[in-house]
C-alpha cells in the first residue's frame, strides 16, 4: 500500500497475514474467490483436480491479509485461510 | 406406563363421540393439536382447545389441512404426541403428509369423522366411504393402521389405543370414526389415570455417536429421538438409508419400503383387534365396523331366532385387514355378509381373502343414513339359502 506519509500509529497496527489452504478435489472451478479476493492473491491454476476443474492457487501468497472473503464466498467449502504466526507491519 | 392424571377427566360423563375422542387424546398424553375445521369433526378440535390451556397443551388452527398434517409431523419430531381431525375433503388434502409421516416413521394420530362423499357430499350426514382411501390414499407403498369405533365409549378407549399403536410402530394411525358415532351422545366412563396403559415414545438409549435414525431391531421399528436432544439427525421424505441420508438406489428403496410395510404386516397379530360372537359354529358371518356394527345387531339376532347360524364380527382394526382370521373362517363358513355405508370397500378385502371358498355378500348404502336392519337381515337370509 502507498501512503503519503507514514501513519502515526503504524507501529501499533499490525496487518495480519493469512495462509491459504485449498481443498483441491472439492473445488468446482467457479472462480468466485479469484474474482473477489481484494488483494488479487488467487488465480485459477493450470492443473486439473480429480474432477477436471482448475482449482485456485495463491500466486501472491504474501499479499493475503486473512480477510477470509474467499472462505465465506466459496460455495464448495473448498478454500479457507489460517492466520500465520507472524504478522507484518504496514510497509511505508 | 400410566396416563398423566392431568389430562384424564375421570368420571362418568354424557359425551358425544367427538368429545370423547378429544378426551381420549388428552388422556393418552396428546398435548399438540393442529387442525382445520370441517364438519362433522370440528367438535373434537373445539373440545381440545377448550381443555388444552388447563392441561399444558397447545392448539393451533392451521390455514388448511395440508399445513395441519405437516405441523403434526414437525410436532412429533419435537417430542409431543400430536393429533388432528378431519373429514373426507380434508382427508384427501392430508394424504401428502400422511405419506411423509409414513416415510419418516413419525408417530401421530389422524381422526377422520367420515361423512357422505365424494367431494363436498353430505357434510352433516354419515358415511363410511373413506375406508379404502385410509389404506391407499397416499402415493407409494406403505402400510398404516386404522381403527374404527362404534360408540362414544369406544371413541374414548380406542383413541388411546391409536396413540399407543402409533408410538409402538412409529406409523400414522388413522381413527376412522363416522358422523353418527361422532355426533351420538352416550354414557362414557373415563377411568382413573392409573388404570390407563400408555405406550411411551420409544426413545433410543444409544448415545449420539452410536445412533443411526433408521437402524432397526427384531420388530423392524427404529427407536426415535426428540429434536433438540443433541442427536443432530437428518430425516427426509426421500428414500433414505439407515443414517437417514437420501440414497437414490433401487437396493435402498427395496430395503426401506419393504420394511415400512413389513413392520405392520409382521406385527399384525399384535395390532389387530376383533370382537367375535358365536363364530365357532357359524355358517354365515356378519362383519361390520363403526356404527354399522351396531345397526347390524338386530338383523343378526333376528336371523339367529329364525335358526340361521350367524356369527358376528365387529372390526375394531380395519387396517391391517384381519386377513388370517378371514381366510381361516372362509374354510368353514358358507358366506360373509358385510354391511357398509359405502358401495363396497372393505368387503373387497373380505372377498379377496375368502378367495372363493366362501361367498361374500355386500349390503351397500350410498350414505346419508344408517342401514335399515331389515335390509341386512334379507341379505343374511339370502346368504343362508
Amino acid at each position, binding site marked *: 500500500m502507498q501512503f503519503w506519509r507514514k501513519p502515526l500509529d503504524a507501529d501499533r497496527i499490525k496487518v495480519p497475514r493469512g495462509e491459504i489452504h485449498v481443498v483441491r478435489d472439492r473445488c468446482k472451478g467457479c472462480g468466485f474467490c479469484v*474474482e473477489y479476493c481484494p488483494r488479487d492473491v488467487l488465480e485459477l491454476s493450470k492443473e486439473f483436480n480429480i474432477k477436471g476443474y482448475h482449482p485456485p492457487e495463491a500466486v501472491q501468497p504474501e499479499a493475503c491479509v486473512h480477510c477470509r472473503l474467499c472462505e465465506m464466498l466459496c460455495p464448495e467449502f473448498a478454500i479457507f485461510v489460517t492466520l500465520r504466526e507472524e504478522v507484518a507491519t504496514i510497509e511505508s | 406406563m400410566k396416563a398423566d392424571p392431568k389430562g384424564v377427566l375421570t368420571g362418568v360423563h354424557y359425551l358425544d363421540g367427538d368429545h370423547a375422542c378429544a378426551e381420549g387424546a388428552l388422556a393418552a398424553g396428546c398435548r399438540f393439536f393442529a387442525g382445520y375445521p370441517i364438519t362433522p369433526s370440528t367438535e373434537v378440535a373445539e373440545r381440545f382447545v377448550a381443555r388444552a390451556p388447563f392441561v399444558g397443551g*397447545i392448539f*393451533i388452527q392451521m390455514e388448511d389441512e395440508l399445513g395441519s398434517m*405437516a405441523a403434526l409431523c414437525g410436532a412429533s419430531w419435537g417430542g409431543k404426541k*400430536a393429533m388432528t381431525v378431519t373429514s373426507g375433503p380434508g382427508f384427501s388434502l392430508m394424504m401428502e403428509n400422511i405419506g411423509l409421516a409414513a416415510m419418516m416413521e413419525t408417530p401421530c394420530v389422524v381422526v377422520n369423522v367420515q361423512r357422505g362423499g365424494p367431494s363436498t357430499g353430505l357434510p352433516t350426514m354419515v358415511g363410511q366411504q373413506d375406508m379404502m382411501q385410509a389404506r391407499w390414499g397416499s402415493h407409494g407403498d406403505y402400510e398404516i393402521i386404522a381403527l374404527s369405533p362404534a360408540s362414544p365409549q369406544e371413541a374414548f378407549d380406542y383413541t388411546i389405543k391409536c396413540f399407543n399403536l402409533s408410538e409402538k410402530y412409529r406409523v400414522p394411525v388413522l381413527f376412522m370414526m363416522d358422523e353418527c358415532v361422532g355426533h351420538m351422545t352416550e354414557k362414557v366412563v373415563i377411568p382413573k389415570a392409573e388404570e390407563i396403559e400408555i405406550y411411551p415414545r420409544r426413545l433410543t438409549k444409544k448415545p449420539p455417536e452410536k445412533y443411526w435414525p433408521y437402524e432397526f431391531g427384531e420388530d423392524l421399528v427404529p427407536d426415535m429421538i426428540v429434536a433438540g436432544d443433541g442427536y443432530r439427525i437428518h430425516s427426509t421424505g426421500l428414500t433414505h438409508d439407515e443414517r437417514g441420508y437420501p440414497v437414490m438406489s433401487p437396493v435402498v428403496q427395496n430395503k426401506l419400503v419393504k420394511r415400512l410395510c413389513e413392520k405392520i404386516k409382521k406385527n399384525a397379530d399384535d395390532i389387530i383387534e376383533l370382537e367375535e360372537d358365536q363364530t365357532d359354529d357359524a355358517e354365515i358371518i356378519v362383519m361390520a365396523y363403526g356404527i354399522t356394527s351396531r345397526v347390524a345387531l338386530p338383523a343378526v339376532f333376528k336371523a339367529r331366532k329364525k335358526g340361521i347360524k350367524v356369527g358376528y364380527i365387529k372390526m375394531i382394526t380395519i387396517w391391517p385387514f384381519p386377513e388370517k382370521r378371514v381366510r381361516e373362517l372362509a374354510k368353514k363358513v358358507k358366506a360373509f355378509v358385510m354391511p357398509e355405508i359405502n358401495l363396497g370397500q372393505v368387503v373387497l378385502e373380505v372377498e379377496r381373502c375368502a378367495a372363493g371358498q366362501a361367498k361374500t355378500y355386500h349390503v351397500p348404502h350410498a350414505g346419508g343414513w344408517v342401514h335399515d336392519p331389515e335390509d341386512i337381515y334379507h341379505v343374511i337370509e339370502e346368504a343362508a339359502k
Partner: protein
Amino acid sequence: MNQANANVPEHPMEKLLRMERIPHIWCPTCGIGTVLSCFIAALEKFDYPLNKVAVVSGIGCTGRVAGYIKLDSFHSTHGRAIPFATGLKLANPELKVVVFSGDGDLAAIGGNHLIHAARRNMDLTVICVNNFIYAMTGGQTAPTTPLTANSSTAPYGNSEPPFNLPLLVGSCGAVYVARWTALHIRRLTKSIGEALNKKGFSFIEVIAPCATLYARRNRLGTGLDLMKFYHDNSEIKHGAPLEELDIGFQQKIIVGKFIDRERPTFLDNWNNWLSQKLGDKFVPYGVAPQQVPLRKAG
C-alpha cells in the same frame, strides 16, 4: 497450499457439515453453497446451544440444505417446510427453528403457509434463497421469475409479474425482513445473526445465482457472471419502502434491511391472553427462548 498431508488443518466449517455427504450436489457457480456458508458463519457467532437449533427445508435445490448441515434437520414435503417448522417449534419451544428453502417452495406451493406464519408471527427464521427459477426440476417458472425472463415453462418469456417477497411477507406482519444477494456475504451473515436473535417471524431473501437453469436459459453466462451483475446492479437501501423493491429482468436489485420491529409472537399471545382470561388455572405453554442480545461483531 494443498490439502495433501494430515498436518494441514481442516476447513473450519466442517464441524457443522455432514462431511460424509460433501461434495454436495449443487452445480459449479451455484450460490446456495455460499448462502449455507454464511449461515454456518452466523451460527458460529450465535449465542445459543447448537444442539437446540433445527433446520427444516422443503423440496428443491435449496431444500437440500437440510441434508448437509449437521444439526437436527428435516427435509419435508414441497411447500410444507413452514408448517412443519411451526409444529416443531410449538412442540418444543426451546428449539430455534430455521426454515431454509427456495423461492418456489416458499412462495408458490408454500405461499399460504408463508403468509399465515408471518401473520401469526411464529418464532421462525426463514431464509429464502431466490434464484428466480425452479432449478431442481429443470428450470420452470417460479413466482419470482421476472417478467419476460425465459424458463422451461415460459420458453418465449415469462408473462407473469413476479412476487415482491419483502412486500408480501412484510405486509403480512413479519418482524424482520431483509434482502441480500449471495455476494453480500458479510452483510448477509450479520443479517442472519440478527434474524436468529430476533423473536418472531424473520424473513431474509437471498438472491443467488443459478447457473445451470436461470443463467443458461436466459443467456446470462455462469454464476460468476450473475455475481458480477449483482456487484454492479445491487444498491443497499436500508429501510426502503417495500413497494419499491420489485425486481425486473436484469434490472437494479435493492438490498438491505427493510423491517426490524417488535410484535408479540404466537406463543406470547397464547400465554399472555389466556393467563389474563383464565387466571391461575391456566397452564402456560412452553419456555420461549429469551431474546439474546446481538453480540457485537468482533
